[in-house]
């Protein structure tokens, strides 16, 4: 179980709180989808959980252990994983290298199956360099595979569907379901996609750095007014506080 108590994250210049006093309790074997307007603070919250951004206030607990002061690497070893919204490219690092670093089981057949899980033909991709030659969608799928490679307590996926073709997207949703069925992992997916929202046990709506709502997918998806009603707003576009 992952617990956030009054977690805040400040912008680099301390001008604003980009995550503001968030309280959350995420249980094992559940799928949470975080959604909300662009710039709302979803990525920042995920990065704070991973330790990439320091918190400016509050605590984070993993199975009761306070991990607020732990480094990225320590959190990774404790079983937290984060698939980047825009993953970096590497000169001289190959798909095989990245997956081998990530994977608990480094057998070639395991690495192949990870690529298959994100809809990549393993033989074509395993020996490709993760450099500028990779398309955005391909890179994104390798990124997701690098998280699937690990045995995790909490797996965070930041907009996994972004830039992914419809065929791979289908494969990806099946992979999330499979992960949910075969492990106890708490799965957190940041997404704007209806089909991802449908996978959720709970949907968490984040606006202006705050949790605006925690609800079920049906409530959002079945309600055409949900996106026009007050409750979720962004200071510029939704013009309502």
């Amino acid at each position, binding site marked *: 179980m992952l617990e956030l108590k009054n977690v805040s994250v400040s912008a680099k210049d301390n001008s604003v709180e980009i995550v503001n006093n968030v309280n959350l309790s995420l249980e094992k074997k559940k799928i949470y989808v975080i959604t909300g307007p662009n710039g709302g603070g979803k990525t920042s919250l995920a990065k704070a959980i*991973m330790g*990439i951004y320091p918190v400016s206030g509050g605590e984070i607990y993993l199975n009761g252990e306070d991990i607020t002061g732990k480094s*990225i*690497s320590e959190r990774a070893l404790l079983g937290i994983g984060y698939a980047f919204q825009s993953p*970096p490219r590497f000169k*001289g690092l190959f798909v095989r*290298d990245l997956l081998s*670093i990530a994977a608990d089981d480094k057998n070639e057949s395991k690495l192949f199956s990870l690529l298959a899980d994100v809809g990549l033909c393993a033989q074509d991709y395993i020996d490709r360099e993760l450099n500028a030659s990779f398309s955005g969608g391909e890179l994104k799928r390798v990124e997701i595979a690098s998280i699937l490679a690990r045995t995790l307590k909490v797996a965070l996926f930041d907009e996994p569907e972004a830039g992914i073709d419809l065929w791979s997207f289908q494969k990806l949703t099946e992979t999330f379901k499979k992960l949910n069925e075969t492990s106890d992992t708490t799965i957190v997916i940041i997404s704007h996609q209806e089909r991802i929202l449908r996978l959720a046990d709970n949907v968490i709506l984040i606006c202006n750095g705050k949790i605006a709502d925690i609800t079920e997918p049906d409530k959002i998806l079945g309600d055409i007014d949900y996106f026009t009603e007050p409750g979720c707003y962004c200071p510029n576009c939704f013009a309502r506080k």
Partner: protein
Amino acid sequence: MLDSIDKKLLKEVADLHEIPQGAYNIRKNGEKLSRNTTANIDIVTKEDKPGIDIIVKPGTKNESVHIPVILSATMDDLVYNTFEIGEDADVIIVAGCGIHNNTGEDSGHDGVHEFFIRRGAKVKYIEKHFGDGDGSGKRTLNPTTIMNIEEGATAELELVQIKGVDNTKRDTVVRLEKDAKLIVSERLLTYFDQTAESIITVELLGSNSSAQVISRSVAQNDSKQIFHLNMRGHTECRGHIQCDSIIMHNAEVSAIPEITALSEGAELVHEAAIGRIASEQLTKLMCLGLNEQEAEETILQGFLA
């Protein structure tokens, strides 16, 4: 025969664990240690100056020549080697120099390698430089490579210096005739107060010749690196220079790429970039459980591989 220092140097510079297969000439402390020739590859000692002629018969396929130089006594070694690669031959040449210096005196090797790669031949040339030993004396390596690539011939150069060389100045000049092709990949790591200078000049003389020079380096501590990569297109040709450096600590790196077109048909590109390790890359690897140092090593190793 080979002692343990020799073996270590040979392993580092030529990936040799024992005496190699095929043609070879091992030079130790300024003298010939051992040599082997084959039906197709002859090695002859020069008479007018120190060095050897390596003569590969036309049509020789799938053979290799190893010509490592090892220094374990302090000295200033100088050699001139000439490579005559016959038409349509296809060979791998592994050169390289390893210096072991345990003394306070300087030790160095200057090698001048001149290649005549005849029509249609293909050469892969691997040159690795390595230094070790605890002595305060400098390990210096100044290689000069002059390459003439004739019509339709191809040369692939792998120039690597990863460890232990205090000062190096490498000078490479390549001339390409019609339909000739050149690929250079240079890898350089310097640390402490080492200095490295690399000058690569490529003359694209013949029509439809092409050259690609990719230089990647890492400069650490107080070391200094300078790259002068110069490509001149005299006719219809294609050339690409890419010079990419990671800078760390208090190091200094200058990349001075130069492209000159002397013909409307010359297509030349240069790219040069110097920067620290991307923090996103470090973060990504740390998210997979590596600590910062491991992440850094992984990135540098890949970059220089």
